[in-house]
């Protein structure tokens, strides 16, 4: 299939269609509004149903209803809107429902700003809504990878019966890049969902519920969730290394998403002018976090530099991976400021000096 030049948000919408999603519920918020706009126009061509919800609170509950009747459903939003979805996602996780949620992260906290940021990392990976649940969190670093991860997200959600978040930043959403789309999924081949609430014809009623008034039953659901999360941790960690070949590194840069891409350019820049060995480790899954793969690279490095568009959020996971065995430095900008390759290269030179 030939490549097409497309804006990130629109490519995300098209990727969802390719993945077999025909139901979108969402609310406009910058910088992701091009996803609902694209789907509002495109869905009629493929028999999809677009609903502009009255709020993000309603949108996530529409997803709950749509997933509960067995359909592949999508919502996209940005940071403040994702905060409003926290309660709904907790219910969705507790009910073991598959949904895909995209967060095109903007600067926070509060109303913050509309420019790119990575300051929702802890919210996405550690504690979004209430209770013991997790989101699978995938972090693309290009528009092509956003397309591929959206496609994968629907399969992961259906396979594990769990909410999956694709977390990009405003850069991923707004940038235009050439992309190649995966083939259109045949809706007839999507996984069967015998648990869905589709009318109790010839069977006992199916109930989509997260209320367990008996403490043992509520605990049992948490044990069931934990067993699922253990399986996901075992099988689904993904990461990438760049310029990490060999058994020695002077500095290992750890970054994800757009920031990782910028760091790769910075590393190339530094390596042109010095003989120092500098590489990049990029987690693709933010949860489950690839601690072991990072620890392996970290063992080769004298020092570690974590770079984020936040005040230091993924930094906590890097510390957990490295467990105090290497010195860790941090560089971050927020508010929509994006560290340039030169900014990162300067930091690296400072550390290497």
């Amino acid at each position, binding site marked *: 299939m030939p490549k097409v030049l497309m804006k990130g948000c629109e490519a995300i919408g098209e990727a969802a269609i390719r993945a077999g999603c025909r139901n979108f519920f969402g609310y406009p918020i910058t910088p992701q509004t091009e996803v609902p706009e694209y789907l509002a126009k495109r869905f009629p061509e493929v028999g999809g149903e677009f609903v502009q919800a009255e709020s993000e609170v309603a949108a996530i509950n529409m997803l709950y209803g*749509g997933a509960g009747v067995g359909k592949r459903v999508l919502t996209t939003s940005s940071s403040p809107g994702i905060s409003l979805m926290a309660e709904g996602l907790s219910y969705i996780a507790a009910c073991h429902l598959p949904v895909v949620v995209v967060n095109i992260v903007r600067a926070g906290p509060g109303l913050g700003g509309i420019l790119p940021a990575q300051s929702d990392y802890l919210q996405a990976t550690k504690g979004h809504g209430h209770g013991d649940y997790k989101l699978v969190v995938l972090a693309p670093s290009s528009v092509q990878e956003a397309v591929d991860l959206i496609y994968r997200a629907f399969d992961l959600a259906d396979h594990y019966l769990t909410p999956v978040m694709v977390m990009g930043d405003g850069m991923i959403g707004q940038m235009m890049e050439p992309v190649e789309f995966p083939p259109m999924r045949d809706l007839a081949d999507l996984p069967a969902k015998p648990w869905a609430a589709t*009318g109790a014809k010839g069977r006992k009623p199916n109930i989509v519920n997260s209320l367990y008034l008996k403490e043992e039953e509520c605990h049992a659901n948490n044990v069931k969730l934990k067993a699922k999360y253990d399986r996901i941790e075992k099988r689904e960690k993904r990461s990438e290394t760049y310029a990490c070949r060999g058994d020695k590194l002077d500095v290992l840069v750890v970054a994800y998403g757009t920031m990782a891409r910028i760091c790769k350019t910075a590393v190339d820049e530094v390596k042109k002018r010095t003989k120092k060995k500098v590489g990049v480790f990029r987690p693709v899954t933010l949860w489950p976090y690839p601690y072991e793969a990072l620890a392996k690279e970290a063992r080769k490095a004298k020092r570690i530099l974590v770079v984020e568009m936040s005040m230091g959020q993924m930094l906590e996971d890097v510390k957990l991976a490295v467990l105090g065995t290497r010195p860790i430095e941090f560089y971050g900008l927020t508010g929509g400021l994006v560290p340039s390759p030169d900014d990162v290269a300067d930091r690296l030179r400072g550390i290497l000096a």
Partner: protein
Amino acid sequence: MKKVFGYPESLTPNPTHYCPGCTHGTIHRLVAESLDELGLRERAVGIAPVGCSVLAYNYFRCDMFEASHGRAPAVATGAKRCRPDLILFTYQGDGDLASIGTAEIIHAANRGEKVTVIFVNNAIYGMTGGQMAPTTMPGQVTTTCPFGRNPEHEGHPIRMVELLSSLATPAYLARVAVHTPLHVIEAKKAIREAFRLQAEGVCFAMVEVLSICPTNWGLTAPEASKWLEENMVPYYPLGVLKRPGTDRGGAAAAAEAREGA
């Protein structure tokens, strides 16, 4: 011997957790009978709310969701838009629908979602132990308006049917009560009509059911029924306030309903 009375097929025989004298059981039965009579049970998906009827999924013999507080109309929207062939109904109380869920009910009605909403108004928060609801009557004592609801301080009770009837989108909007056998018969007609209109793909439908809460009102069931008749019915007029095919929503329809009552 001929069986003359039994459980509707759409109702499980599970004993309910409702307090003695509560009318939720009656309303459940009217919903179940309507589903049975219209042959909708096998296509029905109900949405239970947060509140006294949070466990409604144990009582209806059809597929069910349990929604978060106030969001049942959004859940029903998502389900119906994904599977238009299903029959979606929400069963919500006054705290759920008229307080925390006002945005969801207004917009579901305004989009004309083809779902059926059963709105049980007993003028109080039952499950949490008798707090003030948006529908609590002026002067009515609850644990959070211990000196009686003061409209100067807490505003006046919200009339949801009238509020929704001001929307231009076609809808079936009715208010009924279940405190006497005669009222139960009228309530059944409205609930059945609300499901029929959905089954025929006509419009959004909401039936508000005035209900008693003897436990939290601190009255016996007969006293509570009398209190409802004397205090709630004059403020919440019974009748069909809006029908599909009429563009006469709002004040005119409300006045007509009052005259009719």
